[in-house]
């Protein structure tokens, strides 16, 4: 509880420092959810080694399904955090962009025939083409934001409206199906490895991003542009270029997420694929305690936020909530979290607890 912790900073500085850290919000949410599940049904945490339909041994269980299906969201959260930090706005077109790059991937893999018996191009080529297309769309968004100074949400509204239509157009509104088995490894399991591949891909993405942040100044530049664009220009940075770059990087994340999404089912449904994922990605960033108005950011907090959302989704499914009614419960939880972490509420709470602490000794003395 933030109220208790805030009230005692002089005595336990370490504790206070921990509670002030940004990552505490998603961790607290995660712990609360885990505790709730533990009380409601301890079997939630059971993990089994089972044989899947192809005869391979894989891990299964709720926790595994969380880290499995949360991967796309976590990868998107990486890029979304950068975009949010640099431009002080969010990209709402990621869902539509996933549809586009998934569609491009299938087009390259299947050629003109929508149900080929063999792959028309190597998977790596399809992935690269999809990355390029997706980064080009990212650059389009970024250019609108950086050079034309359009607010990010409005600029990406363009691709949001057009994206799924473009995706349908690329494949002539057909739904190509990839029959190759190796393609489905990336969205499910590689034979012999019991951990779902999407999670492995996500981990690789985190490590690459972490190294990228560690050995370049990008993170510092992005933060300085987000905090004050004019000052960073005076310090010799090029804010336009940095903003553009964050959008292109988000494009790359989108392509990888699309790769996983398409590989899961070996086909695509333009109107449904990655629906509402933009909202979840933005929520992940907000849950991670990052200011949505730009500036300082923490990647790990966002990624944790993404898994919190997936944890919540899986928990709700466990309690047999209808998939369509899910958003209502999600909304309540999100509002509760956001209200608790709002600065004004925190202040009020700490004031209240101070009052109580003052009253208690007075009562004792009397």
């Amino acid at each position: 509880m933030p109220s208790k912790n805030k009230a005692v900073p002089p005595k336990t500085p370490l504790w206070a420092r921990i509670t002030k850290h940004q990552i505490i919000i998603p961790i607290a949410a995660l712990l609360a959810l885990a505790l709730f599940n533990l009380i409601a049904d301890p079997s939630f945490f059971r993990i089994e080694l089972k044989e899947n339909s192809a005869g391979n041994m894989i891990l299964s269980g709720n926790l595994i399904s969380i880290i499995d299906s949360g991967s796309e969201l976590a990868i998107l959260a990486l890029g979304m955090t950068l975009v949010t930090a640099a431009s002080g706005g969010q990209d709402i077109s990621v869902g539509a962009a996933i549809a586009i790059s998934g569609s491009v991937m299938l087009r390259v893999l299947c050629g003109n025939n929508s149900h080929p018996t063999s792959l028309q191009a190597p998977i790596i080529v399809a992935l690269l083409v999809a990355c390029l297309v997706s980064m080009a769309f990212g650059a389009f968004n970024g250019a609108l934001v950086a050079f034309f100074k359009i607010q990010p949400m409005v600029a990406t509204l363009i691709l949001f409206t057009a994206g799924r239509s473009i995706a349908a157009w690329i494949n002539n509104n057909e739904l190509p199906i990839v029959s190759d088995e190796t393609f489905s490894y990336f969205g499910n399991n590689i034979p012999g490895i019991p951990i779902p591949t999407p999670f492995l891909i996500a981990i690789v993405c985190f490590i690459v991003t972490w190294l990228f942040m560690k050995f370049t100044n990008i993170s510092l530049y992005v933060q300085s542009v987000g905090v004050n664009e004019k000052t960073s220009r005076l310090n010799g940075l090029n804010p336009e270029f940095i903003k553009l770059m964050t959008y292109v990087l988000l494009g790359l994340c989108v392509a990888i997420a699309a790769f996983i999404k398409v590989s899961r089912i070996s086909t695509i449904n333009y109107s449904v694929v990655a629906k509402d994922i933009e909202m979840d990605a933005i929520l992940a960033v907000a849950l991670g305690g990052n200011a949505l108005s730009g500036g300082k950011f923490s990647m790990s907090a966002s990624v944790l936020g993404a898994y919190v959302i997936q944890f919540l989704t899986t928990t709700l499914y466990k309690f047999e909530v209808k998939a369509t009614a899910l958003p209502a419960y999600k909304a309540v939880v999100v509002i509760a979290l956001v209200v608790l972490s709002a600065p004004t509420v925190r202040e009020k709470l700490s004031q209240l607890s101070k009052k109580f602490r003052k009253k208690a000794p007075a009562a004792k003395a009397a």
Partner: protein
Amino acid sequence: MLSVTSSPEGKLKAPRSRMTDTNLLTAITIVVFIAMYLYAYFVLQEGFVKPQTMLNLISTNAYLIILACGMSLVMITGGIDISVGGVTALVSMSCAVYLDMHGGNVYVAMLLAVGIGLAFGIVQGFLVAYLKIQPFIVTLAGMFFARGLITIIHTNPFNVENKDFVELKDTRITLPDFLGSTTRRGRFIPATIEIGVVVALAIVVILFVVLKWTKLGRNFYAVGGNRQSALMLGINTQRTTFISHVICSLLAGIGGFVYFMHVGSGSPSHATGAEMNAIASAIIGGTMLTGGVGNIIGTLFGVLSLSLIQSIVSSVGLDQAWWTGITIAAMLCIFLVVQSIIIARRKKANMKAANVKVPKPKEAAS
């Protein structure tokens, strides 16, 4: 701060071109709309020659006009409300269930619609204005909540067969004779509109007056233009933000009932994407997401242009579903770029003007 329409202080400003940003952007929208209509009238002909086609278009989009008006108001104040589509769908579903399954009264259903809108507005407004949570997150949760709640109330789409309601739904208002048309057999058909259009136009007029000539209306512009300055001028910024959200959601409730009167059914998939269409029309009408700039008349024409281009696209022969999305996006893109170029040029010109003769007008203004 971008300039506000003709305020009394306008006379003191440096003698620059007479048109303000708001009026210029609105003028562009109106010109584009007229050009499109003339194109449809003289080149495409077909149904466009009959005034009834245009009237039908307005009848279909009456709800969107109401939603977009509320959206403009929030955007002028510097916020955003993406829950309007969800509220619209929630209103139509709950009214449908109430009328059909509980044998309800039409007037009580209207109260229900207004009540739902008010409830959303008060909660969201409180969270945004007084707890200072990002409007995007709050209204996003609002949208999720509304959409989820719909399926909890009822899952399947159904038509309403309540007698009073069907009567109300089929009521048409007959317009003067010169708008009517004659069939090939020589029978005269008078032009008609739905009740929703009257409601929408009334709301447009009321909001126009409020924004232009009342203290509250000017406060919206002041808060959106520069919150800090507004606070220093003694404006209660929190209350202004609160009121803008309440009005927006209230209008979403009314718009929801108008939509319900048009479709006459309840369904979870109603009004999908309405919030994005409302934002798009407000932007095309010259409202800016940064706040402080906007015009209700522009919004009205924004909705009309958006709906007109959709029907033009489908009548030109590009009737595959994806063309609509792509055209709207292209239109939005062009408008945004034009807007940003105009604003940038104006800013430069203003700066020059201010640099040339600093002392006299500035002193008088302060």
